[in-house]
């Protein structure tokens, strides 16, 4: 491969980028990987593009956005890759005497050490504190080069999830779900009368009565369908 990577390509949790520029000049065009997008000179590289031999090339399939002089691609789908500070919803998949292994929807499980857990337990008593299959709200503390991460439950509001439902949405749609300054999310919470906590890993915790939960679920479904229609002309 002759290209040189000059930008981070693997995460879209910068919410202002994910939402797409609504008030700036927007040049939109659907592109496929390998497509030539013009001269590198005078441009910055955003998500989903690389520079090869002085030209910008798409590495993802989606809608091209030119925001000022930054060229990026809004992809149909993004895999979640954790970054420090991310708020995530995870499921405990396993544990040893003093560590929990947490599935956070990333290529690897994260590790939650006892010292960063919700409360003290005797060595070996991990399952009595958080059992396998339980869901937790936690924060990514650090991420190694190899993308495996450490999460913590020490922090405001971080806890075991004991009620409600967890739904999934593609991480790059989070911006649209939340809206400008959180407006869309606020409206959704009001209309559905549910507590909704949005994890950066594309998992949402919905707590309320089932009609409200259904409303939130429907909103997620229509967001996903909209995004597909917009990037791919209406076909899944």
């Amino acid at each position, binding site marked *: *491969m002759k*290209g040189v990577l000059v930008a981070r*390509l*693997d995460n879209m949790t910068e919410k202002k980028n994910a939402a797409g520029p609504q008030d700036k000049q927007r040049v939109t065009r*659907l*592109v*496929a*990987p*390998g*497509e*030539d997008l013009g001269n590198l000179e005078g441009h910055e590289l955003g998500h*989903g593009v*690389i520079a*090869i031999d002085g030209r910008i*090339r798409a*590495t*993802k*399939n*989606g809608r091209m956005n030119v925001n000022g002089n930054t060229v990026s691609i809004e*992809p*149909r*789908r*993004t*895999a979640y*890759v954790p970054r420090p500070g991310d708020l995530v919803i995870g499921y405990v998949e396993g544990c040893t005497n003093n560590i929990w292994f947490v599935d956070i929807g990333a*290529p*690897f*499980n994260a590790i939650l050490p006892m010292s960063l857990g919700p409360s003290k337990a005797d060595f070996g008593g991990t399952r009595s504190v958080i059992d396998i299959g339980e869901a937790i709200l936690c924060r990514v503390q650090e991420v190694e*080069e*190899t*993308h*495996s991460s450490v999460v913590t439950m020490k922090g405001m509001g971080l806890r075991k999830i004991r009620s409600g439902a967890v739904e999934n949405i593609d991480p790059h749609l989070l911006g649209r779900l939340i809206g400008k300054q959180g407006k869309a999310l606020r409206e959704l919470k009001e209309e559905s009368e549910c507590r909704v906590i949005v994890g950066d890993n594309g998992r949402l915790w919905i707590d309320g009565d089932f009609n409200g939960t259904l409303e939130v679920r429907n909103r997620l479904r229509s967001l996903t369908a909209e995004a597909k229609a917009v990037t*791919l*002309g*209406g*076909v*899944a």
Partner: protein
Amino acid sequence: MGYGDVEMIDANGIRKDGRKAGDVRPISIELGVVPVADGSCRMRWGTNDVIAAIYGPMEAHPRKIQRQDRAVLDVRYNMAPFSTSDRIRPGFNRRSREISKVTAEALESVVMLELYPRSKIRVEIEIICAEAGTRCVGLTAASVALAHAGIPMTDLVVSVASGKINDVVVCDLNKAEDNYGEADLPMGVLPNTGELVFLQMDGDLSPEEFQEAWDYNMNAAMVIHEYCVEALKTGRYPQ
């Protein structure tokens, strides 16, 4: 069986299925045919019917296949029992194993694996109905499915096979031509640069014939690439 005895192309240069020497069989592409997968593509090419589905990136299990510096592509090429005229018994198949390997190596040349170290990306290629050139259809469908799955790639891979029948070099062999022909040259091309990531050959071709077959493949790949791009933009080709 005297292969030279079977007439596959007539004096006017028309093949048994009505094509001229340089014509590719009809192709159609559909995305999202495996709704539960992260990305998927169905390619119908002549009577070939192939589905490619992508899962990942995910944790690479078993640990021994993990690589510290990049993701691994876990490619499975498989023919369904009802895909051929004679039923294929399910189970381990040496031909499928070899095709899986060379397909993985072709795709590794374009997928940006270094972005997902220690993980794996599953590429499942299933031949639902076979009519010659399945490895080419599989490789092309897999690259489109990877793009559909949002896996970053520097280019698509487009693959097609040309060969020789009755001493005439032709593009895109069909089943009878593959059986009775004198040569088969499948290639996998990167449309941006014309570089090759996949190449096999068997049979007998003179240096001139080889160049002819090569050129047919290159030209066909450029045309098929446009179909793939249209499918990625609208969900299907043709509309």
